[in-house]
Structure formats: structure tokens, C-alpha cells
């Protein structure tokens, strides 16, 4: 079956622009995670959804970052007024049950470059 997909795969934004990154999880997966991965680093947690409910957004670095999953499937991560420090790969992962001790299936990521 289809895995997790993300679009766009690459995005170049000028500083100050808004961007929207999309994640299509595996069908039926309850849990959805967003991570930010800087070059040479491990993925850092941003936010977690269980169905349409955003249960944890403690990793979002500022109020310029906003995520939604209105129908409990597709999710969008929006970054307003992008800054150079936002340049990173943004990974989405889904899992087929609630939060604990789950195998996460990752998408290929969106590489965001802010110039």
C-alpha cells in the first residue's frame, strides 16, 4: 500500500514569506507527528495529532508555526514570516494507534530553504 507522502519535496522561500507543507499519512493511521531535522542532527519533535485533535504542540519553536489536521487525515504545517533559521527538512510520520510505543512510518520530508 501507499506510504506517507509529503509535498512539496523541496521549497525555497524568501525570508518573510509564508509556506504550507502537506502530509498525507497512511490511510487509517490515527497518530501523526511533525518533526524538524536540521542538517546532521536527529529529528526534533514539533507536534502530535491523534485523529483531528492536536494533543501536543510543545515542540513548535514559535507562534509563527501552526499545524492542523481538520478531518483526521491530511495534515498541513504552516510557517508564517519564514526566517533563515527555519531552513531544515520537515518530516511527517504516522502510526496506526495512540501515542505510546508505536512504530512510526516516515514520509520523505520537505526540504525548506529560506533565502
Amino acid at each position, binding site marked *: 500500500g501507499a506510504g*506517507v507522502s509529503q509535498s512539496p519535496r523541496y521549497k525555497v522561500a524568501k525570508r518573510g514569506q509564508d509556506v504550507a507543507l502537506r502530509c498525507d499519512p497512511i490511510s487509517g493511521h490515527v497518530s501523526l507527528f511533525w518533526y524538524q531535522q536540521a542538517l546532521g542532527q*536527529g*529529528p526534533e*519533535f514539533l507536534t502530535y495529532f491523534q485523529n483531528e485533535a492536536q494533543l*501536543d504542540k510543545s515542540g513548535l519553536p514559535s507562534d509563527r508555526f501552526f499545524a492542523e489536521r481538520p478531518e483526521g487525515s491530511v495534515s498541513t504545517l504552516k510557517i508564517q514570516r519564514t526566517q533563515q533559521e527555519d531552513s531544515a527538512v520537515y*518530516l511527517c510520520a504516522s502510526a496506526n494507534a495512540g501515542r505510546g*510505543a508505536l*512504530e512510526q512510518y516516515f514520509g520523505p520530508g520537505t526540504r525548506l530553504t529560506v533565502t
Partner: protein
Amino acid sequence: QQPVQSPQAVILREGEDAVINCSSSKALYSVHWYRQKHGEAPVFLMILLKGGEQKGHDKISASFNEKKQQSSLYLTASQLSYSGTYFCGTEILGQNFVFGPGTRLSVLP
């Protein structure tokens, strides 16, 4: 709090063994291991739950020492395809899932 991984990097010849360690200062509920190849998504290897279990498939296995809050990943008779960055992820009940900084493994022919 981010777990600590060691070593940071390791270079092996095909057929050699390696051990990657992951430790935390917090009481862990589970430890996850993922492998990421350059430019690709992390791929799940295995999960270990508290209770000190050991798991494995093929020539890759792992253990979890609950008392020490430490997990080790064992790569036996390494293959070229094992090259990549290995991340442990630690889970504390009620808190975020946190990845370690990664261990870069290079297997040479």
C-alpha cells in the same frame, strides 16, 4: 531531554560487528531504533519496552537495560546496506518522543 548516543561515528569493513549505545537520564517507557540513509526518511528497525527485553531480526538485534536506562543496538556481520545514520528514540510516558543525535555508520567493502 535528548538521549546520548555513542559512538558518534564508526567505520567498519564488510563482515565486522558494531555496537551502538543509547542512554538517558530519565526513566524510559520504550526505546526505538531507526536507520536513515542520506536524503531519505528514517526507517523503523525495532522497539524495546521497559522490562529488559532483547529483540532482533536478521543480524541486527538490540537490548534494553531498564535499570541503567540504556539500550544497545548490535550489528553482526555488517553488510554494505547497513550504512547510514542510526537514531535511537526514547519515550517517557506523557512526554514527547525524543530522538538522539545519531550515530553515523559507514560499511566499506
